[in-house]
């Protein structure tokens, strides 16, 4: 009897283990994790990694991508290959890989914008800013509504800031603000349009154009009907009066308007606290 029981037990365990050998999403994730681990060893020490090792990982990643088409991990594997080439400073190979990705995933704006950004990055790492800039501008023109498309205008301005080029930085922030204002008009009364409003204000704030910021929020208040967006615009406007223009009276007035217009909004609670603090001062 105990032997039979033990046999059943072993058989059950074996069946479970067998079930775990199949190619399910988890097995694919696991395979990719181990490939990434190998790739990581190259990123950490690219100079000491022989080309043969890199090629082996590239082949494995390519195989993986081919075996798992139309998955996010396929795209991640393809990006990993480009990263490996970049780590080894083989920029033309990396860009070739990325160009292939651009053709392969041309229907996905999200992937295409990321690929273009990666190409731009590869030029930046090679100290070829004009080529990088042209790729970044490509993203702004072709994929303005993607996450990357919304980030790149400010990324360009930040580049000039880091490189101590104030005139170009100012120009880039102003260009960014114009781009976002244009975007907000195209996507009027939509969440994306409101995000563009906030980014336009951020761009103007970066060059200390506080009045410009307030005008942006005023235009949002004239255009948007959504309660949460309007409350957010009012709160941001109040903060601009307080931090930028140092106008306490206008800050109080805007906060009071927020409380009166949207008393139940969660931002109204913050506005009340803020107002209380201002009264104390």
């Amino acid at each position, binding site marked *: 009897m105990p032997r039979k029981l*033990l046999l059943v*037990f072993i058989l*059950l*365990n074996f069946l*479970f*283990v067998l*079930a*775990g050998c*199949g190619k*399910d999403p*988890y*097995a694919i*994730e*696991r395979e990719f*994790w181990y490939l990434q681990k190998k790739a990581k060893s190259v990123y950490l020490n690219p100079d000491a990694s022989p080309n043969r090792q890199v090629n082996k990982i590239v082949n494995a990643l390519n195989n993986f991508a081919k075996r798992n088409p139309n998955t996010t991990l396929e795209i991640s594997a393809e990006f990993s290959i480009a990263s490996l080439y970049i780590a080894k400073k083989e920029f033309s190979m990396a860009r070739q890989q990325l160009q292939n990705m651009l053709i392969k995933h041309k229907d996905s704006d999200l992937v295409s914008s990321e690929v273009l950004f990666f190409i731009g990055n590869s030029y930046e790492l090679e100290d070829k800013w004009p080529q990088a800039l042209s790729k970044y501008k490509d993203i702004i023109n072709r994929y303005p509504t993607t996450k990357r498309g919304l980030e790149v205008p400010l990324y360009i301005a930040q580049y000039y800031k880091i490189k101590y080029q104030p005139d170009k930085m100012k120009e880039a922030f102003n260009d960014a603000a114009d781009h976002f204002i244009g975007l907000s008009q195209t996507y009027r009364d939509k969440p994306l349009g409101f995000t563009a409003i906030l980014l336009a204000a951020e761009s103007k704030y970066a060059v200390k154009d506080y009045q410009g910021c307030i005008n942006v929020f005023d235009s949002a208040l004239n255009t948007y009907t959504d309660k949460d967006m309007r409350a957010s615009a009012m709160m941001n406007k109040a903060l601009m009066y307080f931090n930028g223009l140092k106008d306490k009276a206008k800050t109080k007035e805007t906060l009071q308007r927020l409380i009166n217009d949207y008393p139940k909004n969660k931002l109204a609670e913050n506005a009340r606290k803020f107002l209380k603090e201002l009264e104390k001062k």
Partner: protein
Amino acid sequence: MRKNPAIKLLDLFGQSVNLLKNNRALYLPFVIFFLIEFFFLIIIFLSSRIPLSYIFNPIVKAFWGEQFIHFPLNFILLPKIASFSRLALSVVIGSLLSGMATLITANIYYKKSVNLENSFFKTLKKYIALFFILFVLNLILYFAFKLIGLVLFKYFSRGSRELFFIPLRFWSYGPIPILMNFSIAAFCQAAFIYAIPFVMLDNVKPIKAIIKSFALFFRYFRITFTLVILLMLIYLPVLILNMKTIYLIENTFPEFIMIVTILGSILSSLIIDPLLTVASTLLFIKNKETV
């Protein structure tokens, strides 16, 4: 016993090891428990994979979040789920098997014949009492751990940055919480250790058995506590490794967590529990003989 517990303890260990070595029947309940626990560990290990994922993924998502159904983050959760599983198994099945082992130990000590089937059915009659004792023990342990966490949280959320001159980070993570949890577990385990022998060998009702166990524990505090602490120390490396899951995943391989968990199960089910059960039963019997 009180005068020279170190020598008695060594004798007790020697006797327990000999009993286990010479009587395969005595070891059987622990082997059965280990096999059941191992089976559940395999299920937990494969719970993120098809077909088990259809059942377990929604549960993991609901309680801990989506990320823990993916590789390798599922291994961060593995020791936690394994410990829950062990807790449930120890109450539901472990109680019965511990009772059985206690009965077999007494039979061997009194040189009576050992019949597994008889022992099983005799223990089954007292299953509710045994279940109750282990349920109460685990409940106390659970709330003790929770209470300590809550007290520390309340204390530090008031703005204090240190307690007994020890900074906050040492209280939230590191050797202090491990030692605190370890000491609480050892103390509770030691206080409850004679409850099962009282039920199985003296036919005492469960609540009275717990009270009598407490009394006996305090009477033989040094030897009982040393016995439990020494045996539980074997498990300490597993406890420490279980707190370093992220480090282990990054520096070895994720499946290493499963190896550590199985090692923990081997240590606790096949070494600590048998020695603890046999030694405590022997102590109980010897106390009875003295009285």
